[in-house]
């Protein structure tokens, strides 16, 4: 039994304790702007069955996933290339650092101005935000590749595809996973900002509407629903993939 499974009751207890603190605080604050857990739950149920919470979540999720895959594919290609070719790395290093430090909000505004208030602008902006992180991760991973294994491949006349598949990619998996993890958690937050600024659908847009109506229960309900979705992806997709790719280390 691993540590995470063994400590499940501590985790549940911790969550219950957090809700308890929330309950007690809301009781003492006693304000419409600080709803009780039950009110949030009622808002959640209402928005699921009477509102558009489910469709909004899937709209946001699909935008986040499209941006995520584009950023991962582009970032991996560029990162691996920079890791392999030092002169390219020297040339583009300043660009990557610049990209890393541009505020997400600035990118959002620029993309909406240049490309219009549409999904293309949203996805482009999110990709621009995420890209430098993937590039840096994969570039460092490529630099850390152990060439002694590639020499084995050369001695035994492995094809280029075999070297890539059996020797290079397994060494890059931990870096892909690190990018996936940080990517998912970063991208969905940025997508919300972009939706809040310039889209008329999705969780970000609904948060903006709820903000204008001071509906704090709906804001928390939408947040909880979306966090739950992201956690589902983490536990059902990312964590099993991680276990699969590093099973040889166990």
């Amino acid at each position, binding site marked *: 039994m691993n540590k995470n499974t063994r400590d499940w009751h501590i985790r549940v207890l911790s969550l219950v304790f957090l809700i308890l603190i929330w309950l007690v605080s809301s009781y003492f604050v006693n304000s419409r702007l600080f709803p009780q857990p039950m009110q949030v739950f009622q808002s959640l149920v209402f928005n699921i069955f009477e509102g558009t919470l489910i469709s909004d979540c899937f709209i946001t999720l699909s935008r986040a996933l499209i941006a995520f895959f584009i950023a991962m594919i582009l970032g991996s290609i560029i990162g691996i290339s920079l890791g392999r070719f030092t002169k390219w790395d020297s040339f583009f290093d300043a660009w990557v650092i610049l990209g890393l430090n541009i505020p997400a909000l600035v990118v959002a505004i620029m993309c909406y101005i240049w490309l219009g208030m549409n999904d293309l602008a949203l996805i482009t902006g999110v990709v621009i935000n995420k890209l430098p992180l993937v590039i840096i991760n994969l570039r460092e991973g490529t630099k850390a590749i152990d060439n*002694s*294994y590639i*020499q*084995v491949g*050369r*001695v*035994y*006349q*492995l094809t280029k595809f*075999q070297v890539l598949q*059996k*020797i290079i990619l*397994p*060494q890059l998996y931990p870096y892909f996973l690190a990018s996936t993890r940080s990517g998912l958690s970063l991208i969905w937050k940025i997508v919300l900002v972009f939706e809040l600024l310039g889209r008329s659908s999705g969780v970000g847009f609904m948060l903006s509407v709820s903000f204008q109506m001071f509906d704090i229960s709906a804001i928390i309900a939408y947040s909880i629903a979306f966090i739950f979705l992201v956690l589902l992806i983490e536990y059902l997709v990312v964590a099993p993939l991680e276990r699969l790719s590093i*099973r*040889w*280390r166990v």
Partner: protein
Amino acid sequence: MIEIDIINLSKNYAYSKKDENKTFEVYNDFNLSINKHEFVSIVGPSGCGKSTLLQMIAGLEKSYTGKINCSTNLDNKNLGYMFQTPRLMPWLTVLDNLLICASEESISKKSPQKFLEKFKLTDFSNVYPNRLSGGMRRKVSIARTFINNPDLILLDEPFTSIDQPVANALREDFILNAKESKVTLILVTHDLKEAIMFADRIVFLSPRPAKIIYEHQITLPRPRKLEDTHVFDEYKKIMSKFPNILEGKF
């Protein structure tokens, strides 16, 4: 019949990657011939370029002048190479480590499985290398060296850094297999007794730029063991005649 003919070989190394103009000579006009099915040990002081020589023969190091003629076509998985460390891919199982290096012919003859059986490793075929002892990893590495029934085997101090009894057993296993397979073998070592145990001929090198300072024919009967009296007598004979030969001084 000559298997390998090294003619007027010269090789320089740069002191650092940044300044490739400052170089030092490893070989300067170096010549050596090795006959078919001959076992040659190359002995020399540390840093004289023994490993580099093997890398040049194997085609892993290509920046040199001069010629290395090899009657074996090394482009056809005809080479076995044991490195200083086993270099098993940690993300592949023992069997996969053999399969990835095996030719189609070897796979169809089930050579990987047969070698695992020969080295009593069948029970570990689905185990990852990090679960094996140092000695077992070397055995897998030996199996990989012989997997394609090579014509030429290069050994780069492969039995160092493991305890003596295990190393001795591995050496005996190795020589037995090599003699059965009728290969040409080049062993690089700084251990004179090991060189005597393996070789038909020992080539002693000077410090860099490496030159052949002495060649010694070994006519002792086989099989030889490291602790054999006649191996020790041969060792004493060489050392009493040339006490500084291991430092590359004649």
